[in-house]
């Protein structure tokens, strides 16, 4: 674990795996809830957790990189279920990458339990991990200028769902009607770091 400087009131903590990010993030959230860590933002990402709005980053530099407490207890809340139709325009390309049929892509994807590793790109966009590394896929060589809201997509080790229409280079494998982001709802984001997710196939049409 390394603490990297990120300005006057921030610290970027780097670890070696997504697993470690998860337990570090959970430990930091517990500290904040317990009142022993005053910080404005705790932002997990692929291999790092950013602490932003920290009054004395220098003081935390050594303390936060000392071994953390025991791993967090398993979450008891059931996974968020997202209805999905595996009808994306890149389904065939992904099937070719995986060397399986399109139907099998759907079966594997819907059979996986995902966890939101982190959010970014757009409000409510979660980077979901859970697929084995052999199913990593590259981004599209040419990004689309408009990916529709609700598109279920793959890139690298991640699955994501576009919360609104936006440009994007991920491989589109399906569509969900779930509302990923609704600022009039509380919470606005359906997915936040640590949320477990399952995709549940619905009848096509």
């Amino acid at each position, binding site marked *: 674990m390394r603490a990297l*400087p*990120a*300005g006057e009131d921030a610290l970027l903590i780097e670890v070696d795996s997504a697993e470690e990010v998860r337990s570090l993030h959970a430990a930091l959230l517990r500290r904040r809830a317990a009142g022993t860590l005053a910080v404005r933002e705790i932002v997990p*990402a692929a291999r790092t957790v950013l602490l932003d709005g920290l009054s004395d980053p220098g003081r935390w530099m050594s303390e936060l990189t000392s071994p953390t407490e025991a791993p967090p207890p398993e979450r008891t809340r059931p996974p968020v279920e997202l209805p999905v139709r595996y009808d994306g325009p890149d389904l065939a390309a992904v099937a070719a990458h995986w060397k399986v049929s399109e139907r099998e892509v759907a079966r594997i994807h819907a059979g996986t339990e995902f966890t939101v590793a982190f959010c970014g790109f757009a409000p409510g966009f979660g980077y979901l991990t859970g697929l084995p590394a052999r199913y990593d896929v590259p981004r599209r060589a040419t990004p689309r200028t408009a990916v529709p809201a609700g598109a279920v997509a793959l890139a690298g080790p991640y699955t994501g769902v576009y919360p609104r229409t936006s440009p994007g280079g991920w491989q589109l494998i399906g569509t969900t009607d779930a509302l990923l982001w609704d*600022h009039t709802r509380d919470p606005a984001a359906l997915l936040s770091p640590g949320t477990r997710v399952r995709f549940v196939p619905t009848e096509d049409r």
Partner: protein
Amino acid sequence: MTDRALVVVRPGALTTVQDLGRPGYAHLGVPRSGALDPGAAALVNRLAGNPPDAAVLETTVNGCSLRARSAVTVAVGGAPCPVTVAGRPAPWGAPVVVPAGELLEVGAAVAGVRGYVAVRGGIAVEPVLGSRATDLLSGLGPAPLTEGTVLPLGRPTGPPARVEGAPQPGPPAELVLRVTPGPRADWFTARAVRDLATRAYRVSAASNRIGLRTEGPALERARDAELPSEGMVLGAVQVPPDGRPVVFLADHPTTGGYPVIAVVRASDLPAAAQAAPGTPVRFAPVGRW
């Protein structure tokens, strides 16, 4: 039809509603947003008798024109510019009354980029996640003003300041940005760090609320690997593949995959928001490099 409101007659190049933004949601991918020159926004709020978190208008380069449905007190600040009310010159940087039905004209900036218009009572559009700020990256908050936009006003909470005019810092002739080391300074060659500290950069015309883009020598990477997405801070000096440093401003993405070589001190960012394209930029390393 609400009476306490302003109607946009000329929206200008880009005029948005801004306040203190929506910090605290970066983990959901929500940028902080908020006024790019928070000091100027706070000052016009004070002049207009508003609390610091009241929403104001942020103009870009060429101001805007607004018609008052009822008599309102306003204050214009930030980038210096001519101000007229009902066609007659009015003071900049001071409370001004706009009578009912009359036009407030916020002219083109004579220096600087972003102007701020506070209206007594504050702009009372519906807040999103506790803020009325327009976030141009994620699209949260009200859309940029267009002709005919009606801006509802809140209830006044205090009297306007009793001043003739308030001193405001002028826009910089040269933008000096003090930088501490970024988390990925070691992804760059020693020469790149030296270049950043010693070479001349200029503000690029492609700058916006997301970032101050620069033109100048490309910074050389020591590592070609792809950086996994990581959290980004305000003031981060991110270096995209073209090598030209970009300084992240209020609407910056919460995570990013280009390495951050340095971080600009927060107190130097308002000047960055007022630096017009072409302004010379100097990065001044401070702290332990």
